[in-house]
């Protein structure tokens, strides 16, 4: 048994597997991850592209190429930790447990990472003010109000989703979800993730009114006049249109009440929806525990190292 542990805890294995993971990780950052197989064939040519897809280098962090070295690293670390701790206890050597705690926390972290990987479920929900969605545990989240605050230069300052958590018809909690301030409901965490605007441009031409959404167009002087997108800025909302005439395209930006060549933008209706990410996963507590243990182990190592220097 001791011989097996001595072999598995070998420093040579540790060094080899660390070098291997470093090299593979570098290569993985050079290959875009998670794209369609055709992307790799186009980008890297048929031979290399096929090889990337065949060995799952396009999904490296979930592939055997990463999982196997990580498993070897885990076994090596486990054996090393057992060997160090038992050896220390047997010899009744003075405690210098900083590195041991670091090793132990990394083992826990790998286990917790695996648990979250296999148990994580996430959904993206877009809610308009007044609408709601149900969680699998029976509770309901209702969006009372969605605020999008901007700085003077037009960059986002804050997105705030003011929500109520309902159990049946009774409100059990009111909460303002912001980026970096998720809502926790049972095992679910709800994050402010994004937003989208559903815009409608109300156009008037020769007394006739027509409503179009982004991507739609009306005929115009032998070409078309299309609604590209709406934009929000400190001066208010504007609609961006594309006019095509004689094969030439021109981009035009209009605010409500402005007109272009006889087409009046009489109104721009923007209806914002808050994008909430709902996440549930097991193992989070173990991750926090292992990060805390890692911090403590690092602190002990640091403290002992300072003692050595002094």
């Amino acid at each position: 048994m001791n011989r097996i542990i001595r072999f598995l805890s070998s420093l040579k294995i540790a060094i080899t597997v660390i070098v291997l993971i470093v090299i593979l990780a570098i290569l993985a950052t050079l290959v875009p991850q998670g794209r369609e197989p055709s992307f790799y064939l186009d980008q890297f040519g048929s031979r290399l592209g096929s090889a990337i897809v065949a060995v799952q280098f396009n999904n490296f962090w979930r592939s055997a190429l990463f999982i196997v070295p990580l498993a070897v690293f885990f076994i090596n670390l486990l054996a090393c930790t057992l060997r160090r701790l038992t050896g220390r206890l047997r010899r009744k050597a003075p405690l210098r447990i900083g590195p041991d705690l670091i090793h132990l926390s990394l083992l826990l972290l790998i286990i917790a990472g695996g648990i979250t990987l296999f148990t994580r479920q996430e959904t993206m929900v877009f809610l308009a003010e007044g609408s709601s969605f149900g969680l699998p545990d029976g509770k309901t989240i209702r969006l009372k109000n969605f605020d999008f605050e901007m700085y003077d230069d037009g960059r986002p300052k804050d997105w705030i989703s003011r929500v109520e958590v309902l159990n049946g018809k009774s409100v059990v909690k009111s909460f303002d979800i912001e980026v970096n301030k998720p809502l926790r409901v049972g095992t679910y965490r709800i994050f402010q993730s994004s937003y989208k605007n559903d815009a409608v441009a109300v156009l008037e031409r020769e007394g006739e009114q027509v409503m179009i959404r982004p991507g739609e167009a009306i005929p115009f002087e032998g070409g078309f006049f299309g609604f590209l997108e709406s934009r929000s800025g400190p001066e208010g909302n504007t609609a961006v249109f594309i006019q095509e005439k004689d094969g030439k395209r021109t981009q035009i930006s209009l605010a409500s009440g402005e007109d272009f060549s006889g087409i009046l933008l009489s109104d721009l209706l923007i209806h914002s929806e808050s994008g909430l990410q709902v996440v549930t996963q097991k193992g989070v507590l173990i991750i926090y525990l292992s990060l805390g243990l890692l911090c403590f182990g690092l602190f002990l190592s640091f403290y002992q190292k300072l003692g050595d220097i002094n």
Partner: protein
Amino acid sequence: MLATIAFILQFAALIIMIVFLFRAGKGNKISGDISPYLLLLSAVLLLTDLVVRSIQINFIAITNTYESLVFFSAVIMIVLAAGKLRFKDRFASVIVFGGTVVSLALLAVASSPIAPDTIRPPIPALQSWWLVLHVTFAFIGEAFFVVAFVSSIMLLATKNEDKRAKLDKTTYTAIAVGYPIFTAGALIFGAVWAANAWGSFWSWDPKETWALITWLTYTLYLHVRLYKKLKGPVSAWISIVAFLFTLFTFFGVNFLLSGLHSYG
């Protein structure tokens, strides 16, 4: 303006160091050198610059490339000045000299168009105290890696075994102190921030992956040294490569690879 004065002070300190390095004989104690005080003064100015910006944006000013570079340079200055005041020998002077060159290079980048110094309050994702801890601890750790980088180059440049042993010890000490701080900042606080902002501790974003690569390379350094025969030149090369990875994580990923960290 404050960063420019800090740059001039560091440059002046560099000139003084050159003069003293030429004047001092081998192994002689160097006295009357005011360069560490100039370095400290430059750190104070750089930190003052950040305090002024923090007041203006109503948040800790460490949320873009310019502010990160200024903070990094300030911490390097403090570490180098403290080292020079404590170890007043020729070795310390040469290491401080090399570290100051690195810091000046960082400030030069801070004054270039790739790191605009426009004062802008942070976007929602960056408004987190975990981010502040993440960035500051990572750079404090990396300031020690600068010392290790310079001493590793010096180790490779000399054939004298006594000098090599001393430089090897300096490299190891700097990494042993910087490693826990870097780990706490770059990996632990970064993961907690990500969990609060995006609901995931780790996303294998290119910058996260390169931070992990850097950390693994320093981990490799610490373990390789357990083999006596690998102490010295081999471990010095690993320290140099690890520091180059640190720089790539900071600069290279921002400009060459895209991801969640494209803002800083």
